[in-house]
């Protein structure tokens, strides 16, 4: 699961870099990914 998430994060960061986006957008992607991971684990643990 972590490898899959890391790959997805890299893909999204790659897109942002190619768009020369601001660093705050990379932080937003990482913050969102943590919340997603948290929600996914909560669902799995029921």
């Amino acid at each position: 699961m972590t490898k899959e998430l890391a790959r997805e994060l890299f893909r999204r960061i790659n897109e942002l870099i190619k768009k020369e986006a601001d660093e705050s957008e990379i932080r937003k992607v990482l913050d969102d990914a943590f919340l997603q991971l948290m929600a996914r684990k909560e669902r799995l643990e029921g």
Partner: protein
Amino acid sequence: MKVNVKVTDLGPFKGVREFTLDSERLNVVEAPNAAGKSSLIKGIAASLGLPTKRRVTSELARRLGLLPNTPEDRNPLVNIEAQRATVELSIDGQPHKLVALAYGLPKVEPPGDERFLLAGLLLRESEIVRHLDEGSDDFSWLVSTLSLSSWYEGAKRIVEGYQIEARDILERLQADKRSIDNYQQELEQLRAEREKLIRRRKDLETQLSTVLREEDPDLTAKIDTLRTDRNEKERNIKRYQQMIADRKAERDRREADLKRIKVRLLELEADLKKIKEQLDKLPTRREIEEAEAEASELRRTTIPNLREEIGYWKSKVALLEQAVQHITKHAGIVPCPLCQECQAKPIGLIQRVNFERALTNARDRQREAESKLAKAIQKAEDLESLRLNVDRKGKELQKKKSELEAEFNDLKGKQIEAKEQLEPISQELSSLERDLLREQTELNEINTRLQRLLTSGQFERRNQLVTALRQVELDLGRLNERIARLESEVESKIKVEVKGEVVQLASAISLYQEWVETLTDLALQIDDAIEQQRKGAARSFNARVTPLLEEMGFEGLRVWIDESSYKLKVLRGNVEQPITSLSGSERHALAAVLTLAAKEAYAPDIPFFLVDEVLLDFDKKRLTALSNYLKETSRSSGMLVVVSRLGGEKLNVRSVEEL
């Protein structure tokens, strides 16, 4: 290509001046000292290379004198008597405007390409010149800045920040887990000890009963009654405790349900927001009509024009191929086979290399036109199918939105229902806790009365037993207190708050372990990307350096950026040499080669190459070689070359042939 330049209040020059730059010639900015040559070149550079987004290129722009050193300083491009300077360029009909304010950041419309500051400018302050002047062979900054590697490095720094934070939190959570494990181990020991004390109390009480029975049968009966009452109270207390635990578990279950509903509602809200944004982003009816009009224009004008242009280049390629074949057949240097005038009146000799370059250029232009045609056809098709796609996408999004809204409303109902079910459980819990307290108070009273009865006699044996019993009760009290304190410690640490949500400690540890693993994987992938970018950039750069060195007459010299250390390697003959072994003039000539290589590798789409002062250090042979190369490149590729020269009485732009 011709470019009109209009400058106002730029550097030492006050007022408005207009110049025309032409790619068919080598443009020379000629002026006496302090008349504005460098300001004109820097003004053009600023209008093409600012604003910079990256820290490293912002510093370079300051060093080049395109930005003030600090926000409080005066902009060096603005005339001392003016409040602003402007540089206006018109490239292929596209206006570019720089407005440099005396104080504050300049405004550039459209925004420039910061790579130009490294790869399109050859000044004394240029980064490549500076490094070679200092004898530095570290060129990792060049591959980092011109490729995307520095952006990946920025992303890596952010990810590392997140890694440090996540590891700190994980270590703290694991320390809490170790404390809890220790507490629980201690609790197990204390509970076993309590069991032992309870057994000891029972034993002492049995012995005391026997003694008391022998003393006074009535007293024994009273004590027995009180013991029966005490046992009953203790049973009641256990029952209440069990009921409270059951209700609490029930409450926790329902609260977990509510939390799940809340999480799902948040997800649904986010999904609905995304769908709304997508719906808002769909082109409007007017935009669709505009797209259809644009498609029609493409079909009517652009596509036929491009087909015509391809035909033109195809015929030119065929002609040039014929010319090259002709020259190859006659080898070496021959009269021009194309020019009509040559047959009647030979006008001179043309080098074969010029034809080959013109052929390459014509093929490039043909390919470029073909690529533009394919793109135009694709664009026309895309624009024509826009209405259909928008309708289909709109319907899909509306359907998805309705489904999500239905689920959202259903869950909202369930949330209200779950909240309503939680309320009676909380009330029942309060009532049970009150009952438990009452039973505990009554038990304490019974124990006091029992103690009083047990201590009423005079016999030595009985007193010994009572003292021992009291000691056991005291030890039991202390043990219970310690157990309660530890249980409370465990209770306070077993749940933690993560991003506003209360979760079990074990879940939080597992969450942060996965997050740390994810960030580590991500950092490794970014490292790979950095390495790929740097290697790719070094390779493109090296591929252009060797032919340029030959062109500029550097015989027996090999220069390249090493693909693992990113150091600039210089080989003369077969011997590696430090940069410091090159003479000052040689370093500047090499800087010109490296800057041109960087320009061709990383910024071929910016049709400018600006040179100021550096040429003054060149010997005649190198100056001729560079001038010839620049003239030829500007003619064949349409690149505008501007160089400065000391001379004349006032600021003027002329062709090198005129001088």
